[in-house]
C-alpha cells in the first residue's frame, strides 16, 4: 500500500464511529435479534464500527438449542457466517445468562461471545458514540 493509502486508512480508522446495537427482546416470537444483526452487517462499508450487546431475554439466543424457527421466524444461524466474516464483536450480560441458567458449555461457539458484568454496563455503553436499543 502506498504511503498515501496508509495515511488515508489511518485517517478513516480515527474517524470511525463506534455504535453499539443493544437488543433486549426474546429471540422466539420476535424478529429483533436478526434485525439487529442485519443492521450491524449493513454498517460495514460505512465509517462505523458496530458491536452487538445481548441483554435481558435476548441472551436466550446464545443457547445452542435456541431455535426460533420452531415459532416460524428466521433462524439465528443465518447470522453466523457474517459474524465470522466481519469478526463482529458480540457481548452478553453475564447476570442475564445466569438468570436463565445458561451455562458456558451451552453457548453456541459461533457467537464468539464475550461476557460483560452488569456493574460494568454503564461505562461500557458510554464508551460508544451512539447506542441503539432494539
Amino acid at each position: 500500500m502506498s504511503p498515501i493509502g496508509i495515511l488515508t486508512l489511518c485517517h478513516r480508522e480515527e474517524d470511525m464511529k463506534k455504535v453499539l446495537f443493544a437488543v433486549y427482546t426474546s429471540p422466539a416470537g420476535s424478529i429483533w435479534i436478526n434485525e439487529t444483526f442485519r443492521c450491524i452487517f449493513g454498517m460495514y462499508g460505512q465509517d462505523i464500527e458496530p458491536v452487538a450487546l445481548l441483554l435481558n431475554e435476548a441472551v436466550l439466543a446464545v443457547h445452542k438449542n435456541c431455535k426460533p424457527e420452531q415459532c416460524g421466524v428466521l433462524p439465528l444461524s443465518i447470522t453466523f457466517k457474517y459474524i465470522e466474516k466481519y469478526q463482529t464483536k458480540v457481548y452478553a450480560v453475564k447476570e442475564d445468562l445466569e438468570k436463565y441458567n445458561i451455562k458456558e458449555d451451552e453457548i453456541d461457539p459461533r457467537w464468539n461471545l464475550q461476557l460483560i458484568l452488569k456493574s460494568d454496563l454503564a461505562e461500557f455503553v458510554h464508551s460508544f458514540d451512539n447506542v441503539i436499543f432494539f
Partner: protein
Amino acid sequence: MALIIVKKSPDHKISHLLLEIAMPQDKVVFIQDGVLFAVDKNVKDLVKEGVELYALKEDFVARGFDEKESLVNLVTYEEFAEIIENEPKIIS
C-alpha cells in the same frame, strides 16, 4: 456526557436499565410513553445524582396531564432538538 432517550413506560425493564446506566452530567429525556416517569414520585431516586431529567412537553400533555403535574423539567420539540444537537453521544 450522553443524551439518554427513554421511550417506553416505567412498566418496561429496559426503561429502568436506561436510567440505571445514566452517569452524572448525562441528560435523560423522556418521550412517548416514557413521559409517564415524569409523574413517578420516585423518579429522581432512579438515577444517580447529577443526572438531568427532562420530559417532552407535547408527549406529556398529549396523555392528559397538566404541565404542572410534571416532576421533571418539560422541554418543547425545539428544545429537544437543541439538546440532541449539543450532545456528542446518544443512547436510545
